[in-house]
């Protein structure tokens, strides 16, 4: 069965590049560009992994993550968070919200791919 990643990012060209990279790796990639209804989209898509931008229109990625973790069976869903703010306090805030991995922009393709592979492997083992 195909592994599914849901990419929630409002920068279309970042979305396109990541979609290309992950599709090539055999992932089924779904995308979304809004924060407001992001939790509902995640619940409906049932992905194996979420890549979540912090600065989203309507609702921040931090709030999306906090709300997501309150849902049943969503406590362990791997979430890779992307942000342009890499200060320690942002990282701490993300960890408190329940992030699985935190990555600052501009990231490299290999960093994203490695993080996705690691997170998926960890989730599969648990």
């Amino acid at each position, binding site marked *: 069965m195909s592994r599914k990643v849901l990419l929630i990012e409002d920068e279309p060209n970042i979305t396109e590049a990541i979609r290309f990279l992950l599709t090539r790796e055999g992932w089924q990639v779904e995308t979304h560009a809004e924060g407001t209804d992001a939790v509902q989209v995640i619940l409906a898509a049932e992905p194996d992994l979420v890549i979540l931008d912090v600065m989203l229109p309507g609702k921040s990625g931090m709030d999306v993550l906090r709300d997501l973790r309150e849902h049943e069976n969503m406590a362990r869903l791997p979430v890779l968070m992307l942000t342009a703010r890499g200060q320690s306090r942002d990282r701490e805030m993300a960890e408190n919200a329940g992030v699985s991995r935190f990555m600052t922009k*501009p990231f490299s393709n290999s960093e994203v791919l490695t993080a996705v592979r690691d997170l998926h492997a960890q989730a599969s083992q648990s």
Partner: protein
Amino acid sequence: MRDTLTGSRIRERRQISGLRQAELARQVGISASYLNLIEHNRRRIGGKLLVDIAAALAVEPSVLTQGIEATLISALREAAADAVGQKAEVDGLDEFAGRFPGWAGVLAQMHSRVVSLERTVETLADRLTHDPQIAASMHEVLSTAAAIRSTAAILAEPGEIGAEWRDRFHKNLHQDAERLAESSKALVAYLDDSESADDKSGIPLEEAEAFFAGQGHHFPEIEQGQDAGQISLDDLDSGAAKTVAREMLAVYAADAAAMPLDQLRDALAGQEVDPLKLAARFSVDLPTVLRRLAFLPKDLLPQPAGLAICDASGSVLFYKPVPGFALPRHGEACPLWPLFTALNRPLVPLRKRITQLGRTIAEFECYAIAWPQAVTGFDADPVYRSVMLVLPTESALPARSDASEVGTSCRICPRNQCETRREPSILSEGF
């Protein structure tokens, strides 16, 4: 004593001229041992001998006798006081400046530059952290850079990718490069504009404060009874700034009506400023007095007066600076300012001597009080605001031992042993 340094200057000049002590002594007809005593400031010198030595050294006598400029000594004292981890020999300061005026000047100049750069860092650190426009611009730049990096890396990979993907990525790269150029230009233009005197940052509070500063924080028309609503706000760009300024002007007008200028002139004539006495005399509350004192013309209150008003969240609602008094524009201020501690004890008037650290040390007499902004109904929680009047103390007076130390914000505060510290200071890392 400055005049006892003539000998040091003679020695310095002789060495610059490359003359040996014995040679100079012979030229002016004294013994080398006597010149040695003069050069070590153990013998006073004047009259014909001074003129002869000056001639032998090819300088004006005044160059040898002239005292060191007080400003240079003062600047060196400030540099010594600000030094971190290095204790300067303050007792030998006059001698140092007398013997090495050039080096002393360089040190004073360097210290002045460090102070100026610290101020710039302070402003920029605050802006970079909290200015919403810079934060948005930086996000735009970094997101575009991320897209470019990712796309370019895909195109640079060895091996073929499909023509459709390749064309799409080329188009994306072009789009992102254009975006990056535009957003970078916009960011630079914004930062450049911020340096200009006509800075309009787009933040309503700052715009309104700049408007007040442009008027010298004083409105003669309102003092003469004109309606505050008739003051022109055409210089303000945004509607939000106009609303904020209008509210501030309404408060100003109410304070001016409660404490008319002519009566205040009598009350302040020859008197030390005493806010509580003024409150009693005019039958007004203390916040009114503190605000009013900050907005008086110089002929009534010659000394500069700073003011800060905040709400219960600590957000600064109005800020009138005075030299040396610095509050961050966008929050994260030092919680030790009486402006904030007053919120712990509403309606209790505070008077506190404050030393602000972080640059050339400045001392202030601060008066503060927190008061309920409005009573909204029975059993409703009161919403407090706090106001603080900041009066610089006479710089000639020695620092008081009972003065409390405060910073501006943790990031640029050198006071490391502080129970309220939120984050390490960049100054402690050797800035």
